[in-house]
């Protein structure tokens, strides 16, 4: 009966906001720590962080470094999922924005900063398109964003002319692989953007509005919240985040690959949000936990590489992780486990 009693006790004790949040954090954080410790056991050099040429090096840094683009996409996705939506087009937006960046660098003499702004604007336009379909045409999100998912890669290929467009330039090379005070620029960019997003969501009432629209859009509208506007905004944010990720990915390889840039990233992003404990049915989103989710995925990937298994096993491990997380989250599964435990005890 312990499980049941635990649950009852949870309900009885009045829980202040912060404590409740901590409980949410417990699972994902422990999972991350376990994976990192596991990696350490497999590969003794895992925890070493060296400084070479004033840059941080090491497996742990690597995890953060590689996760930077995914985490951007994932937090955008978390907000969209918070409104009871989903954005399948993030991979295509990455390809489009990477293509815009590469072609502008190659064909114009605009300042890199302006090019960055144009690329981000392209992402916002993509988000607006998705948002309009979802909010104003009432098309289900999975379907609405499928359109851009399919057409987006074509648009990206059209922009690049079907080739991989390569470029050079100190500004974008810095974004892709530069360091500031030993920390990779891309990590700094991601951290700043996510911190900004967090502040906008949690220090204003926007986060509440997003969650309320995700929980019940009709009721939110009747409570005086512009439900459609909030939905559009969520997709715009997702578009913006993906655009930034697209620029980072393009800058990393110093080129735009319309076919492969950001391929399957939407799946990693959704996975991260789910691992972060958000229900796909909307109503709640957790930016911090989403970041942890991305780190878990990245640490797992790194761990598989270190263990000497072929990297392709990552896919199976990811599948297993999704399944476990889903089953733990599913209310039906929880009830079943509780009932089974009850039967055992009695």
């Amino acid at each position, binding site marked *: 009966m312990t499980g049941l009693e635990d649950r009852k006790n949870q*309900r*009885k004790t*009045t*829980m*202040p*906001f912060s404590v*409740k949040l901590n409980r949410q954090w417990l699972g994902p954080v422990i999972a991350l720590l376990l994976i990192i410790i596991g990696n350490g056991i497999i590969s003794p050099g895992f925890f070493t962080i060296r400084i070479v040429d004033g840059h941080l090096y090491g497996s742990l840094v690597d995890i953060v470094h590689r996760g930077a683009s995914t985490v951007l996409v994932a937090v955008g996705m978390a907000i969209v999922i918070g409104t009871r939506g989903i954005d399948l087009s993030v991979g295509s937006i990455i390809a489009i924005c990477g293509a815009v960046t590469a072609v502008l660098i190659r064909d114009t003499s605009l300042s890199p900063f302006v090019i960055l702004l144009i690329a981000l604007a392209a992402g916002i336009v993509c988000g607006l398109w998705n948002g309009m379909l979802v909010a104003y045409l009432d098309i289900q999100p999975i379907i609405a964003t499928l359109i851009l998912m399919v057409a987006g890669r074509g648009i990206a290929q059209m922009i690049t002319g079907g080739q991989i467009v390569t470029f050079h330039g100190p500004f974008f090379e810095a974004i892709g692989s530069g360091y500031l005070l030993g920390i990779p620029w891309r990590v700094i960019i991601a951290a700043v953007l996510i911190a900004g997003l967090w502040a906008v969501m949690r*220090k*204003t*009432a*926007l986060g*509440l*509005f997003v*969650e*309320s629209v*995700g*929980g*019940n859009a*009709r*009721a*939110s*509208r*009747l*409570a*005086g*919240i*512009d439900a459609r506007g909030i939905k559009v905004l969520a997709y715009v944010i997702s578009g913006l985040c993906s655009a930034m990720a697209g620029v980072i990915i393009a800058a990393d390889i110093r080129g735009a690959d319309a076919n492969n840039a950001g391929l399957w990233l939407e799946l990693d992003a959704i996975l991260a949000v789910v691992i972060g404990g958000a229900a796909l049915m909307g*109503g*709640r989103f957790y930016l911090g936990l989403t970041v942890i989710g991305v780190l878990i995925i990245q640490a797992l990937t790194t761990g598989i590489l270190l263990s000497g298994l072929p990297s392709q096993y990552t896919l199976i491990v990811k599948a297993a992780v999704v399944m476990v997380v889903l089953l733990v989250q599913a209310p039906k599964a929880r009830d079943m486990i509780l009932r089974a435990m009850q039967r055992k005890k009695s």
Partner: protein
Amino acid sequence: MAAMTQSTSAILSVRGVGKVFPGVKALQNVDFDLVPGEIHALLGENGAGKSTLIKVITGVHPRDAGRVIFNGTDIHPQHPGEAQNMGISTVYQEVNLVPTLSVAENLMLERQNLKWGFINWKPTIAAARDALATLGLDIDVERPLGSYSVAIQQLVAIARAVALDARVLILDEPTASLDAEEIKSLFQIMRDLRGRGMGIIFVTHFLDQVYAVTDRITVLRNGQRVGTFVTADLARIDLIGHMLGRELAEVSSHRHHDERGFTGKGNQIQIKNLGRKRMLHPVSLELSGGEIVGLAGLLGSGRTELAELIFGAQKADSGLVFINGEPVMLRSPQHAIRSGFALCPEDRKQDGIVAELSVRENIILALQGRRGWLRPIPGAEQQKIADDMIRALGIATPDREKPVGQLSGGNQQKVILARWLVAKPLFLILDEPTRGIDVGAHADIIKLIKELCDEGLALLVASSELEEIVAFADRVVVMRDREKVSELVGAEITQSRIIEAIAR
């Protein structure tokens, strides 16, 4: 008076059935008998236990106590499909058929004519046509069900029940969305079915219909059976007495119309020719602060529509609203809220609560919406507002962080009320504020309505319960067929006057 004499020949008997939901005893020791060839009305206020009883009979909810005996044997259906196979069919107010399938398929699902294991469409469709013909319905059965009106969909649902050789047919508020002609033909069909020996349970809000078509009446109140009566022997006034019981009588002091009428003080709200094609004929109405205007009328008379037009939830295509002589924009709820309007909607689950959010977040939602996203209410203030409201309205919740979806219906209603009180409106519209609420909360909410009025709020309260309106309204606007038909003031406000106005 009680007519239990035929119980031995009953096709369906309910004995001592009980059902408890968290916090509410929905049914207690209820007995009920249905004999073949009768139309039996199941009546009661909202929340009396009618729909729970039906759900227990049809297996939607498992019962906690008692027996259900059908055709002489105890039954325990696990879901409505099983009850249907036994011969108990139910037609719900929201038609439970598949709108994307054709009419024929809806009628013949799982019963299609098979030839070597494959569906033989010709006889299947012919059988569907025949099933409808028995109800005198001649429509193209190959078109999708969803392309027909709700009335026809309902008849199709009944035809399905009949075609399934149902011995017992349960009609759960089938007339809510039908017009007078459609109701007439529905009654004819019900009488035909009765003639063929079917037992029909008829749930409705409309007493006229009860007297028009039923043979016996069982009244439920507060989860208990008040009694079973022969319709012809029961005077309407007695029936109402049975339905309302004492609880409500206690709160219905008539002080409002004695002490005050339309005072003309406080904020003046003027509604001029507000209407929308095919939804509401233009309505004009005036209210002032400290006044309660009741909005009476049957379901579908245009009450909810008027409330939604005033609030901007639906766009009006004619008319204007003025506050103290100033015209107000009515483009969206947002605009209405900014002008100091508030609406507690009829459908709490769909239009009211955000189930996943906490009590606190639900309470501050409208206030925060009014302030905009850039000016968040500080956390400490949010907690104080929520705690104050939980105390003031007596919301039964362990703490303010509990998700609203886990509270009982009455408490959810109070949370929504709290949401609007916090937003400090000058004009509050309550659409069926006591629907589906247990008696305790019911009295609380009526008391609250009166207090709000005393504080100078202008209130427009739509309700299908005349007794309730008579109890608190200073003036009553009567709606019928999407039109304002009468306005009663002071001593004119009696149930019979309202009924007269509706019936006229």
